[in-house]
């Protein structure tokens, strides 16, 4: 599955687009991401699934659009 990575999270993932093995839910996705990139655990970001920011766990369909969004501070 494809994950779009925004902002300074790209410093951790090394890319703006990640390809990882399909997972079934948000919780499973963050576990997989933390295993691949342990530094993400110390970083604030939200996971958007199909253009929705959902609090808590949520299912992820086969062709879901996934994005990792960090907060920005600059102005």
């Amino acid at each position, binding site marked *: 599955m494809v994950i*779009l990575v925004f*902002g300074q999270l790209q410093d951790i993932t090394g890319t*703006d687009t990640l390809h990882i093995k399909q997972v079934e839910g948000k919780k499973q996705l963050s576990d997989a991401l933390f295993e691949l990139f342990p530094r993400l655990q110390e970083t*604030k970001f939200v996971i958007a699934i199909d253009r929705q920011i*959902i609090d808590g766990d949520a299912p992820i369909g086969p062709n879901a659009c996934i994005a990792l969004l960090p907060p*920005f501070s*600059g*102005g």
Partner: protein
Amino acid sequence: MENALVYDRYQRQLSLKGFGLEAQQKLLHARVLVVGAGGLGCPVLQYLAAAGIGQLGVVDPDRVSLSNLPRQVLFSDADIGRQKVDVVRERLQALNPALQLETWPYACDAAFALDIFPHYDLVVDTCDNFPTRYLVNDGCWLTGRPLVHAAVSEYEGQVAVFNLPDKLGIPGLHYRHVFPSAPSPGEVRDCAEAGVLGMLPGIIGCMQSFEVVKVITGIGEPLRNRLLTYDTLRHRQLVVNILPASDAFPEMPTSAEDYLRFDYGHFCGLPQYAGIEVEASVLHPDMRIIDVREPGAWPTIGLVHEYIPLSQLEGVLQLSPGEEVLFVCRTGRRSLQAALLMKERFPLSRSYSLKGGVQSLSSLKKTILP
């Protein structure tokens, strides 16, 4: 303003399908408060003033510095060292003399938010740091003001509209529904550390000011409860819906009393003295410089300044309201003590401590001071 002049000046907006006189009248009667006259604030202020917003308020504590100029396009080389809000006043009044303008040359804090936000129809967050972003968000929530948010990072920007009720009066969500708590210091680099090209805040600031116009006039669909992230390098754009977070926000003040007591610096993991420790680049020729080392200390500063050792400071120094003083020592530790002491004794003065001490001053003074 006379009607004929309104027609002439705003002719292109009046003839725009779906906009017209009714929308223009709404702009002319709108009061918009802009928090921060930096990279985002400059285009926001410029375009809102040009479009005919009736009243603009601007709050910003900073003075124009050389490194502002590539992106803060309201300011010129000759403005270096001047209070930003003074330059903003000059430029915007020249651009649109009918504009009502209020300016405050200090940082937006909780007392300011409670006092001033209610006098404005909406607030635009164009600041450059997390403590102020959370403070503005919480202030808008407490005072019931819609908030048009934007922020930038390297080549990307975010825009959102928070706290805007829908047509049925259902309240909008706020920034904490996306990011309930602040990142720790150093986790997210700001423009000073990470760098930025001026066009980015230009683009994002224009998107932000467009959202202001949409909220005021009711045209189109503002980014209510939605977060736009725009990546200028690849032209990737993502708009996501924000759903209400199920958790309450234990770290969010819920009353004016809580709000006034809430320490946003601490909430964002900053030490208590954020804003007091400053870089040498804030120096300007009118600033009083006081060396708090014991007499005969080395290296010398090489600038016009006074010597008052820290041990004698309290009995000797009197500061008037608004007076700006930069305390200097070898490392920045004693001067921090001095600045904190004077801040406590003269709360209306602006006491600063030079971060990094004399060393950081000598490297910059050649370029900053005549």
